[in-house]
């Protein structure tokens, strides 16, 4: 089966644009779920170990005079996550809540995870995250520039932005917290997705050498993608197998890491097949036409 990637590319690009716009819509109208890493505040995770009424815990929280999100968690819904904003005396309030919970449900100290991040350090973590993204980008661009011609590099970068935007859309829609591990997921996907795109363009380069100008850019891209599609899909599948198991079996915090990775893997494979190649073919045709018209 041969898929005409270039000719049908409008459909593929539309699908991506819709997903991204949907994400932007969610982000604008419902806001993003900024994790405590970046916003500051406190996240208390407790394993209650039996069925409980979430209202009881909301009461305990309210009694301690703090507004917090209280949600059930865990496979058996026997865990609780309490998320508190950064406020004056947060540590003491938190301590009181913990001891109230310990008393009510007869819990020991090792059934709690507590993350507390001050607002100042939250700001620094944001700065740090943005810097990591920027540096990784520059390094990868340098690599692409070194390795490929201009148009290929440009197409690879568009694919890259596509993947990042889709990941953002996913966390906006699914309300996954944006924290340090999301940034790590982003960088991993950026690396992985370029990797996929490179394999496709590697094939384009090889086929160009083999067939020269005998075939059009569109034919060249279609042929190259079809030749490398088995590889692209298979490696994405094996990676999806493992990371999906992490998502299914993992604990809450690892799920938050695995979910963006899963979305990113799919987006990365999608963009290297349906976006990068067709874009390159279009742009190459355009530049050929421009040169031709300039020559007249």
């Amino acid at each position, binding site marked *: 089966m041969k898929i005409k990637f270039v000719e049908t590319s409008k459909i593929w690009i539309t699908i991506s644009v819709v997903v991204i716009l949907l994400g932007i819509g969610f982000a604008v109208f419902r806001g993003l779920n900024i994790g405590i890493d970046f916003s500051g505040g406190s996240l208390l995770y407790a394993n209650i170990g039996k069925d409980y009424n979430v209202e009881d815990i909301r009461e305990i929280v309210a009694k301690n005079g703090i507004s917090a999100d209280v949600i059930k968690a865990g496979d058996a819904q026997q865990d609780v996550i309490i998320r508190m904003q950064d406020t004056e005396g947060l540590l003491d309030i938190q301590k009181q809540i913990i001891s109230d919970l310990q008393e009510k449900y007869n819990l020991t100290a090792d059934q*709690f995870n507590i993350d507390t991040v001050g607002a100042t350090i939250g700001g620094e973590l944001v700065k740090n995250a943005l810097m*990591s993204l920027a540096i990784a980008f520059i390094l990868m661009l340098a690599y692409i520039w070194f390795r490929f011609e201009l148009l290929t590099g440009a197409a690879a970068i568009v694919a890259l932005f596509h993947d990042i935007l889709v990941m953002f859309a996913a966390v906006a829609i699914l309300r996954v917290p944006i924290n340090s591990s999301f940034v790590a997921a982003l960088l991993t996907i950026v*690396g992985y997705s370029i990797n996929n795109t490179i394999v496709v363009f590697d094939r384009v380069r090889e086929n160009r050498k083999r067939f020269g100008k005998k075939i059009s850019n569109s034919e060249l891209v279609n042929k190259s993608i079809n030749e490398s599609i088995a590889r692209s899909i298979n490696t994405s599948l094996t990676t999806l197998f493992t990371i999906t198991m992490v998502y299914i079996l993992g604990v809450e915090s690892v799920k938050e890491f695995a979910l963006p990775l899963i979305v990113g893997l799919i987006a990365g494979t999608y963009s290297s097949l349906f976006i990068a190649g067709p874009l390159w073919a279009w742009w190459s045709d355009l530049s050929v036409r421009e040169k031709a018209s300039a020559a007249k």
Partner: protein
Amino acid sequence: MNFKSLVKLVLIICIIAVLSFIALNGLEIGIYKVVPMKDGIVLGLDLQGGLYSIYEAKVEPNDPDKSSKIESAIQVMRNRLDQANQYEATVAPQGDNRIRVEIPGIKDPQQLMEILGKPAVLEFVDPEGNVVITGQDIKSAKPGFGEKQMPVVNFELLPEGAKKFADATAKNIGKAITITLDKEIISSPIVESVISGGKGVITGMKSIEEARQLANLIQSGALPVELEQIEIRTIGATLGANALQKGIQAGIIGSIFVLLFMLVYYRLPGLVADLALIVYILITGIVLVTTKVALTLPGLAGVILSIGMAVDANVIIFERIKEELKAGKTLRASVDSGFHKAFGAILDSNITTIIAALVLWYLGTGPIQGFAKTLFIGVLASMFTAIFFTRYIIRLVMDLNLQNRKLYGA
């Protein structure tokens, strides 16, 4: 059929089997002991439970004594942790006004946080309520045994404190001088004689253990700077263990999926790739054990993720081999050119992942750094196994003259 190649192949498979067995179960020969891999890998705080905390010192940015104040605050914290038997704790400066504390494997992080955070103002107070000396006057305090083998604390004062203390004891013979820590009375020894030499003894402890605790509290004294906790992460041991167990489960099931997929889809080369994947997992484990890189929860996710990614290079190679076979080349020529042509793509694609891992390694914090490290180790190990190991094995397999092209997926 090439007999030598067969022997080599069988030998390699045996070695891998033995290594895998040792990795799972450990080994004991005489005095030499190899622990199972799962016990040899250093676990991060988020997997074994523990406390991670960043303290910020409230000092003027251009205080000339800033670094020495922070240095002594670190010393005080370390003393307190030693006193609580937390010898595996790390207390280290971070940046120029922060202190990072990491304590692995503790049952009650909240309790330790209190020990650490205590401002600990130590005072010796006379019966009228005047502060005679404070913790800063004390040079040293040690537990010991006094008359009738009663546990005591021997302390020594700095010259200025010694003078003040001599005056105070002269005035209060027969009365009690109260020692308070954060206004809490920890001991009320009766002054028996004038203490003029700057050395004193506190009696009245019930056990040597109590004497040691008191000595430590006096010794570690007050924190020289005010510290604010700006980041605290505590992980309960049970929750950490649970996360680890679930992670391992995910890794095992995920790996089985990958192994089966490769075998079913690529047949004989798939079997070789499976062998390579086992070698890859072994290498990653050995590197983690020997380098003592702590495995964090995201790090574990990274290892599992990289198990899926590790077969990528093999997939690229095998797809190539299939193509070359379809193009009508001989088996050997197909395998050779498959490896040859795939090499560029493999190298290129791994470099970008290495870039991502390195950036995270240097700029990431805490658990994320753990992820970067395992990702980095994973990518290098997978390149090695895919390019060298798989190639070597495939050649050996070809020497066996298993010429049925179907075995290669053509």
